[in-house]
Structure formats: C-alpha cells, structure tokens
C-alpha cells in the first residue's frame, strides 16, 4: 500500500515538473517574441526602404531638399529640419521650466503643496496626444497669430514650428519632471545638510551640489524627452503647418517626419517608390529614437544601481 502511494506521488511529481517545464518554455518563447519586435520592426522597415535607398543614396536622401514624389525625387532635408526645429524649441522651453519645477517640488515646496502638485503632473501625462493637438489649435494658434507673431513678423497664420514646439513642450513636461524629481529624491539629505551647514543658501546648495549630483539623471531625462518629441505625430501635425520647406524662423511652418508619414499614407500606394520613401522616413525615426532610448535607459539603470550600492 505505501509503495503504491509513493508511486502515485512520484508520478504526480513528474507531471508537475513537466508542466513547469512546458510553461517555462512557453514563457521564454513569448518573451523572445515580444522583445524581437524591435528587431523585426527594424528589419521590416529597412527591407521596405531598400528601393528608395538604391534609387538615390543615403546622402541624397538626407541632404536634398527636392521633394517631388511624382518625379521620383525624395529629399528628406526639409522634414529632418522640421523635426529638429520643433524638437529643439520644445526642449528649450521645457528643460529650464521642468528643472526649476523639479527643484521647487523636491527642495522648497511644503508637503501640502507637493501632495497637490505631483498628482496633477501625473494627470497631465495621461492626456492623449490628440487632445494636446485640439488645445494647440484652439489656444496656442490664436495666441501666436494674434498676440505673439505680430510683434516680430508681418503675418503669420499661427501654424508654425513655434506652435508645434510649445505643444510638444507641454507634452514632455511630465516626463522630465517625474524623472528629475525621482533622481533628486535619491540624493541623501545629509549631503544637502553638509552644504547648508557650511552657510550655503538653498539655491547655492541646489546649484553646486544637487544639480551636480543629478546631472546624469538630467541628461537621461533630456535624451528621453528628445526621443519622445521626435516621434510625436498627431499633436504636432495639427499645429505646425505641414509645408515641405526648411523653416528659417520660429514663425515659419514646418513638416516633421512623423507628420509626413501620417499625412501621406493613404495615397502613397498609387505613386511608385512613394511607399518605400515613407518607410525610409519611419526607419530614420526608428533608428534615432532607438539609439536615444538605449542611451538614456543605460544611464538611468547605471545611476539606479550606483545609488542602490
């Protein structure tokens, strides 16, 4: 009797272990599949953009301003510049504001105010891009058209790289603030006390100690914000005019890469090489954003590990 019982359990045990093994293999498969999406996207986009690359060359594609799809001319320079303009403006606006806000939240704000502030920054991050776009059209465009632009240029519709930059800046506020605050909170209180007890003011302590200590985190947050701004599509598309020329002032319209893809996807199949060119645009975005993301994540992970040690 006891022998039989032990047989049963060992059979059951074998079954349980087998089940464990099967599930483990299955999970491994899922993990590999979902991670390899990165690779598949890269390869897929490259494969699709080969025709246009062979037709022109990387150099021509990146530096030419000729955008005449019907004649088979695909120069991405205006779109690259459009992307750089809106991203640059967004970072120039957002970075100082976000750093000051993060310093205020972590060093100055009374507990009561901090408890109110942080959730609102969180809520802002949940608002969908299209809502930012609607807000841009309803609020920022008239603001630029009627109140800002007239001081500088003769005429502007408001649809400009400036509008795109402002909308993007607001979109990346929560991203930068949350990362920088997190990094600032890991700086030991005693380190700040050391500076304060030497007679430094709070601002001097921020400037000379906290800022220096948080620098890698700030760099990582900025890189992440840049890559986020690079890929943002709909909100920017709605406000920045979409004109395929290189912008020369903040009041000029621009045409960033994501907007180009979004606007032309429907009709691309009727013109030869057009779909390949748009895939090339997607590939460009993908490569740049991939690189920036890897850089910032590696910095942040290192920082986390260093602080944990």
């Amino acid at each position, binding site marked *: 009797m006891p022998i039989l019982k032990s047989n049963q359990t060992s059979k059951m045990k074998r079954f*349980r*272990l087998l089940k*464990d093994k099967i*599930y483990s293999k*299955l*999970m491994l498969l*899922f*993990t590999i*599949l*979902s*991670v390899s*999406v990165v690779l598949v*996207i890269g390869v*897929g986009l490259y494969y699709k953009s080969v025709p246009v690359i062979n037709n022109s060359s990387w150099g021509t594609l990146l530096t030419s301003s000729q955008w005449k799809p019907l004649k088979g001319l695909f120069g991405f320079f205006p779109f690259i510049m459009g992307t750089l303009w809106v991203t640059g403006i967004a970072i120039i606006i957002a970075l100082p*504001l976000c750093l*000051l*806000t993060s310093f*205020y*939240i972590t060093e100055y*704000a009374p507990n009561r105010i901090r408890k109110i*502030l942080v*959730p609102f920054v*969180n809520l*802002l*991050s*949940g*608002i*969908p*891009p*299209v*809502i930012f*776009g*609607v*807000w841009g059209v*309803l*609020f920022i465009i008239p603001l630029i058209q009627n109140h800002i632009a007239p001081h500088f240029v003769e005429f502007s519709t408001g649809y400009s790289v400036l509008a795109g930059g402002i909308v993007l800046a607001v979109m990346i506020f929560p991203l930068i*603030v949350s990362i920088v605050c997190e990094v600032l909170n890991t700086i030991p209180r005693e380190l700040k006390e050391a500076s304060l007890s030497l007679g430094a*003011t*709070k*601002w*001097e302590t921020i400037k000379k100690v906290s800022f220096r200590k948080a620098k890698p985190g700030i760099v990582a947050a900025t890189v*992440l914000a840049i*890559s986020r701004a690079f*890929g*943002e*599509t*709909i909100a920017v598309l*709605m406000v920045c005019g979409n004109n395929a020329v290189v912008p020369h002032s903040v009041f000029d319209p621009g045409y960033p890469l*994501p907007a180009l*893809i*979004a606007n032309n996807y429907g009709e691309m199949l009727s013109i030869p090489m057009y779909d390949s060119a748009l895939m090339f645009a*997607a590939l460009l*975005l993908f490569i740049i*954003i*991939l690189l920036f*993301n*890897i850089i910032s*994540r*590696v910095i942040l*992970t290192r920082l986390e590990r260093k602080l944990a040690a």
Partner: protein
Amino acid sequence: MIRRKIEENFFRVLMVLATIIVGGSFFLIVGTIFYKGVPFMNLDMITKIPGGGFYIGKEGGVLNAIIGSLYVAGGATVLGLFISIPVAIFINMYLGGKNFIANSLRIAFDVLFGIPSIVYGAFGFLIMVYFGIKASLLGGILAVTLLVIPILVRTLDEVIRTVPHELRDASLSLGATRWEMSKVILRQIRPGILTAILLSFGRAIGDVASVLFTAGFSDNIPTSLHQPAATLPLAIFFQLGSPVEEVQGRAYASALILTIVVLIITILSSILSKRFSKNIK
C-alpha cells in the same frame, strides 16, 4: 551677503513661476477642452452615430467612434495581457529577476515603450499588407497590442517585484514548482494587474498614430473583426478639419468625452497603484 540673498530670492520666484506654468498647463488644457466642448455636448453625442457622413453631416453623434475605441482598446489590452503576464512572470520567476539578462530585458521593454506609435502604425500596416488584411478592427487591435505590450510588461514587472521575497521562498520551500508559485503570486498581485490594465487601456484609447492606417474609419458600428472601425481620437482629428461648424462642434464634444474618460482612468489607476506600491508610474 545682500547679493547672495537677492540671488536666492530671484531663483525662488523663478521656481514658483515655473511650477505655476507646468502645473497650470494641465488646467489650461482641460479648461480649454471643457469651455469649447460643453456647449456642444448632448445626449445624441453618445447615443447616435453620425447622420449624413461624419465629415459633412450635421446630425447625430459619435457612438460609432466610442464603441470602436472601446473595441480597439479593450481588445488590445486583453490580447496584450495574454502575452505580457507570462513575460513578466518569466523575467521575475524563471530568470530570478535580478541578473544581467533580466535587467537587459527590462531595458529592452523600456526601449520598446519609447518607440513612437507612428512607427508601430507603419509597421502594423506593413504586416497587414503582407498578410492581405485590410484596414479593420482586427488590424487596429493588432497594432495597438504592439503598443501596449511594453506598458503592461513593465507595470506588471514593477508589481511583481513588490511581492516580498519571503513569500516566494516560503512557497518554494513547501515544494511548489515555479509555475505553481507563479499562480500564488498572480493571486497576490490582482490589484496590480488591474492598474496595468487601466494604464494600458488609457494609452490605447487615446492613441491616433497607431490606428490611423490600421483600423480605418467608418460611420457605422463594426459588427465583425474584418470591418473598419472608427476610433474616438481619429474622429476628433477628422471632424476638426471639417468646414461645417456643427461637425467641428462634434469634434470639441468628442474631445471632451475622451478627456473625461482618460482622466477617470488615470485617477483610478493612480489611486490603485498608490495603494499597491509607490514605484509604479
């Protein structure tokens, strides 16, 4: 001394101003949407499909887009969960959670999270063309699933990491296999799974660029996976471009609906995650 004091006060004022701008931008946006949207809000908006075409018809509402969005976001979240729960468990239970491979995988999912939705949309479209799928509910769900997998995996990962090691060790030392232990852990983190679902749903329902080429658009409520489906963000985008005032109004009202839905989801998820752990974003 006076110079240092002036500097201190100058930057303090600057910081307060910056905080007001950053915090105030939220109210500015929500305020604008409410101000424009409320006058056009009525029961028809959420109970009727657009009459006479979404671009020019003056009658009806956006029920088609509301239902379409629920289908797409819901479908993608469910599909995403089926993939991401095993992945999160694998990283933490089978890989041990704290070694080089586990951390590299985490970075990989962070990177996937950073890939813009337009790239997922373009890539999704490529796949659909390859397999001969037309723009449809199915296509939209597939593209959005790619978008939400990284969110789900990272949130679940954070949640599983908050489960005390003692619990795993206790369960393992009782002779449980890792799979059996994983079931115990899954029961433990149920509120955390709900947080992940809300976050994923919130992101999925608001995204445009991924459904732009994959889900298509239709004035009717889809009745099968192979029919094109309207989504709320896309309805906002298209209607805003219409020359007809009533249609623009419908865009404002749709924006109001979407904003309210997303705010409720964000608030719910942050309440949930606060109760569960401090580390989840």
